[in-house]
């Protein structure tokens, strides 16, 4: 019998992991509510996999606490992990065994007693036809789907997927996305999905956190964070110095920002963009390109470019 969870499914507080002087994760806190598809975003090396490994007790935190289903992870490790399924980084499985044998091993280790679970989960991920082939003959996409099947075989309430679309072709990415959304909607599973692609998270996550160099940058509802009405406009001109001077003496002065590369950008509402275009033309600025983006996307892009 499983306890009914009323609080958050994951509650991470002040989590840190140091390797000598290097802080892989630094005072990280976030919450995942029941039924969330929670995006865990950050560029490569931001600390996503380290955090996920701590969530699965693979590595010990230097400081902080993790509560899953309202229980302390260290004290209730087995009880908690029985309710969690995970694919960590890439779905490494036993290549010399068949897909079905891999699933059988992991089902038994997870305490799964349901004899039909393996067949059911193979159908779910669309691998039933190749279930009795050795995994070493599988494509990357099939391995990824088998990895997800391994994570789902014991019917967990929380599924943790670390970069689940890495190395997949567009069709494979779409398949994984649809699978996550379907399991979230139809079975009410909670997902924590890590990625370095904001565009991917936009399509599936309802809440997200962005981390950079182990620290939380922002956390919240995707629809708020990705509000299309708030824009950042990148401006490329023939003479940036002249354009900067003209903008500084115009009504747009308060909107001008410099990005990490020293290019001109303006923060403004979506409705103000046409007026900006007219004013630039009136000021005689030779515009080469004007690229409006969402503020979060812009921020995330700057992180990636800086990295």
């Amino acid at each position, binding site marked *: 019998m499983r306890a009914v969870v009323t609080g958050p499914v994951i509650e991470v507080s002040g989590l840190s992991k140091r390797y000598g002087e290097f802080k892989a994760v630094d005072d990280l806190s976030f919450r995942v509510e029941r039924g969330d598809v929670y995006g865990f975003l950050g560029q490569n090396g931001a600390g996503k996999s380290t955090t996920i*490994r701590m969530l*699965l*007790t*693979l*590595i*010990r935190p230097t400081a902080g606490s993790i509560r899953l289903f309202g229980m302390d992870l260290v004290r209730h*490790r*087995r*009880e*908690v*992990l*029985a309710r*969690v399924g*995970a694919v*960590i*980084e*890439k779905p*490494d*499985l*036993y*290549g*010399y*065994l068949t897909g079905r*044998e891999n699933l059988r*091993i*992991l089902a*038994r*280790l*997870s*305490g799964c007693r349901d004899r039909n679970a393996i067949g059911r989960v193979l159908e779910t991920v669309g691998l039933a036809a190749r279930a009795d082939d050795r995994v070493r003959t599988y494509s990357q996409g099939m391995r990824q789907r088998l990895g997800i099947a*391994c994570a789902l075989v014991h019917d967990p309430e929380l599924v943790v997927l670390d970069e689940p679309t890495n190395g997949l072709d567009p069709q494979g990415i779409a398949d994984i996305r649809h699978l996550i959304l379907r399991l979230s909607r139809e079975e009410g599973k909670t997902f924590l999905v890590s990625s370095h692609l904001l565009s991917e998270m936009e399509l599936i996550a309802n809440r997200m956190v962005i981390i950079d160099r182990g620290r939380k940058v922002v956390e919240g509802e995707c629809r708020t964070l990705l509000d299309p009405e708030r824009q950042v406009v990148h401006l490329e001109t023939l003479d940036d110095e002249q354009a900067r001077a003209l903008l500084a003496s115009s009504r747009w002065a308060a909107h001008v920002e410099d990005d990490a590369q020293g290019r001109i950008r303006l923060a403004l509402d979506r409705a103000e963009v046409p007026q900006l275009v007219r004013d630039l033309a009136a000021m005689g600025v030779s515009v080469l390109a004007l690229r409006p983006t969402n503020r979060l996307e812009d921020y995330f892009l700057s992180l990636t470019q800086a990295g």
Partner: protein
Amino acid sequence: MWTIVRIELFKIFRKPRTYIAFGAVAAIVWLIQLGFYVDGETYVQFGMQALSETFDVEGRVLNGYLMAYIILQTLLVHVPLLIALVSGDMVSGEAGMGTLRLLASRPVSRTQLLLGKFLASSVYTVALLVWMALWTLFFSLWLFGADDLVIMKSEVVTQILRSDVMWRYAAAFGFATVAMVTVSSLAFLLSLFAENSIGPIIATMSIVIVFTILNSLGLPLFDAVKPWLFTTHMLGWKGFFDVQLGADNEQVVGSVENLPAVLRSAAILGVHIGLFLALSVAVFRRKDILS
């Protein structure tokens, strides 16, 4: 725990490398048997030359029991490599494949996971020795027949009645199992520190070779440590073939000349197994699993 052992055994016996050891044992034993089947009589006559001048030797000296003794002497020195081939891969192989994190993130304790793996590698070791016993003893008996066992040592010839031999082989294989589990537990411990099995296999063999060399060196510097090296005790199985002599200088059937020494050797090997295993558990429980 039983579930983990079954899973680990399933994995061991589905790996092609597992059968290398079984194949190698069968091939080596068969080659020695073939050699002795063709040229064995000449070899034995040469060995018995001095004895034949003083005694009338009747019966079949080159029999299955003697073959088993010869093969065991030759083979047990090399079996540690075959043991390390699997035990050295138990954790490092999983780390290399990336499946260790898969196992360690399941709702089983790390101690149970490790003990399950160790027990499975021990079952493999026992299976290999049973396989060896089948080939060296039973196949030799079928090929060469049974008679008294005559063992020639440097200055002593021991004749053990055929009715008194079989239990000695059972005990010798039992002892050899303890010795090989010791090697297995060392390879198992070393496999915790690597991400491919080559390192632990080579490290295990290096330790066995270095300790064996230390044993054979007659230098006083090493005399103090020799009694505590596990390699000193690995050939203790031979003690079961040293028969006690009675008051009339007759062999005492069912006896072992120095049973306390044999048991002490087995106990020291047992302590090594416990030590290596305890270290393995302590290391694995604290290990950050990154691969």
